[in-house]
């Protein structure tokens, strides 16, 4: 045996007394009184609803009915048969894919280019940020008028190129394009600022060294800037995807009929949750759709978590 003298283990009561003394020295009473209510509220409006969403999805839950029978995976089985849900899922994924790629490529390009006109950058960033502070509903109202088939500015602008009037909000493909444009317009400024933060953190000496080696702008971008920007790009992809998977307000506004011409009924995931849950009150089934959304979001966050833990 080693020569170290093992201290005899303290009796349980003494250990408890000791840890109680530590807790008391750290003002545990105040911690409980101050943090307790906040955590309780947090549990009530975040954790409990998230858990309850999973539970609800196994029941045929109806808010005004007394009985809500357990249906197991019944709601999930119906997800496979429900064709509006399939449309919504495909639409949401297409929309999010185009919107995320469009927003981030544009934001990245603009953020990089802004670094070469450093003096004008703050003013331009402010202009890019105006749509970000514009709430979604007025933003969609603005664009609905631009996309208007009869009086819209877009069709007017296109008429100069000899393109006939297009029903931007009436055609199933064009409305996807219209929604993607609204989303890019709304969010690009935010990601320009985020990328700007990452770009400013890149040491200037690295690029000067590359200049001395005769590297072109493109080589500097590929070899130095993009690799160093990877964590921020990943953060942006996750954030931007979550924002766009949740799209609803612009769809609600842009797909309403305008000037008597009914718009194409573009279905999205949150729209389906809204109509199943709050129009038809099939809350169990809407819960299953919420679980789909939750799993999307959680897997994205998990990917981000894993990627950042590596470092």
């Amino acid at each position, binding site marked *: 045996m080693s020569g170290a003298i093992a201290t005899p283990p303290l009796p349980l009561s003494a250990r408890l007394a000791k840890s109680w003394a530590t807790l008391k020295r750290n003002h545990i009473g105040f911690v409980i009184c101050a943090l307790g209510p906040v955590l309780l509220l947090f549990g009530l409006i975040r954790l409990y609803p998230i858990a309850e969403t999973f539970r609800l999805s196994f029941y045929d839950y109806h808010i005004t009915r007394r009985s809500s029978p357990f249906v197991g995976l019944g709601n999930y089985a119906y997800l496979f048969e429900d064709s509006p849900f399939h449309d919504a899922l495909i639409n949401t994924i297409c929309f999010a894919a185009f919107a995320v790629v469009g927003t981030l490529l544009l934001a990245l390009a603009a953020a990089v280019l802004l670094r070469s006109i450093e003096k004008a950058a703050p003013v331009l960033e402010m202009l890019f940020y105006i749509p970000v502070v*514009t709430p979604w509903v007025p933003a969609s109202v603005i664009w609905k008028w631009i996309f208007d088939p009869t009086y819209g500015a877009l069709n007017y602008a296109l008429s100069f190129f000899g393109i006939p009037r297009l029903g931007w909000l009436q055609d199933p493909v064009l409305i996807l394009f219209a929604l993607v444009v609204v989303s890019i317009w709304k969010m690009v400024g935010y990601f320009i600022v985020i990328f700007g933060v990452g770009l400013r953190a890149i040491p200037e000496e690295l690029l000067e060294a590359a200049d001395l080696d005769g590297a072109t702008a493109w080589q500097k971008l590929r070899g130095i800037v993009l690799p160093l920007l990877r964590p921020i790009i990943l953060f942006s992809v996750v*954030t931007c995807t979550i924002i766009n998977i949740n799209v609803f307000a612009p769809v609600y506004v842009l797909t309403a009929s305008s000037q008597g011409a009914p718009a194409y009924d573009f279905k999205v995931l*949150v729209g389906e949750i809204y109509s199943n849950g709050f129009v038809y009150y099939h809350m169990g089934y809407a819960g299953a759709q919420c679980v789909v959304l939750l799993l999307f979001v959680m897997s994205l966050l998990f990917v981000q978590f894993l990627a950042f833990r590596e470092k």
Partner: protein
Amino acid sequence: MFRERSVRIAAWICCGTLALFTVVPVLWIVATSFKTAAEINAWPPTFLPGAPTLENFTEILFHTDFPRYIFNTILVSAASTVCIMITSSIAGFVFAKYKFPFRNTIFMILLASATIPLEAYMIPVYVMVFKVHMLNTYAALIFPITIMTFGVFFMRQVIMGIPDELLEAARIDGASEIWIYLRIILNLSKSGLMAIGVFAFTQAWANFMWPLVVVSTGDMYTTELGLAVYQRAFFTEYGPIAAGAVISILPMMIVFVALRRHIMAGIATSGMKG
């Protein structure tokens, strides 16, 4: 970063075009809100109003329930802001300055849930509000926006910067923890707390999904909800709708222009957290 002449020229052209893309639509609606109905429906469309008029604003402010919506929104946003400022600063203070079991675990759970959108778990929240017979009330509108995870995170960062010695000195003088919070922490984290307040107000103001779900009568509409429902019902009257949109954007613009430095700094923090 890139000093090449060709890159600089490309930068001016691309960023200029992008700025036009982001700014012109907003200017467009501002201009439209001052146009007469005849001019709005004219072809070809005009950009600047030929005969500026306030009739759209008088229409929406005096002949509709829109002022009521504005009042509701201000009330709900202000209440939400106060709640978030209180909860964020208290929780941020405790997480920053006290040691207690599971502190990091609790904080991680808090942070992990930050990005999960309300849309994904709003059904149980709705059921809860329904069970206590609070649907269609101000309390229901405020309930899910009384805490902000980012606010807790941000206030923790700010309060961690306050030296521990200050707190110790106050304790030696016999100050209670509550006194320390009220007199020292709140005083020294004032500007951070203001930033969170502004952020909370703009978020509450722009809220659309939750009011849509929880509100059932016109007298409880918020501006966002009112605007969305209005434009569905009377899209042919674009003038008043444009005026309503301008009214709903205006407070956001004022806040942004007045506090743009703080807002940009705040985004930097949220971006770096990733």
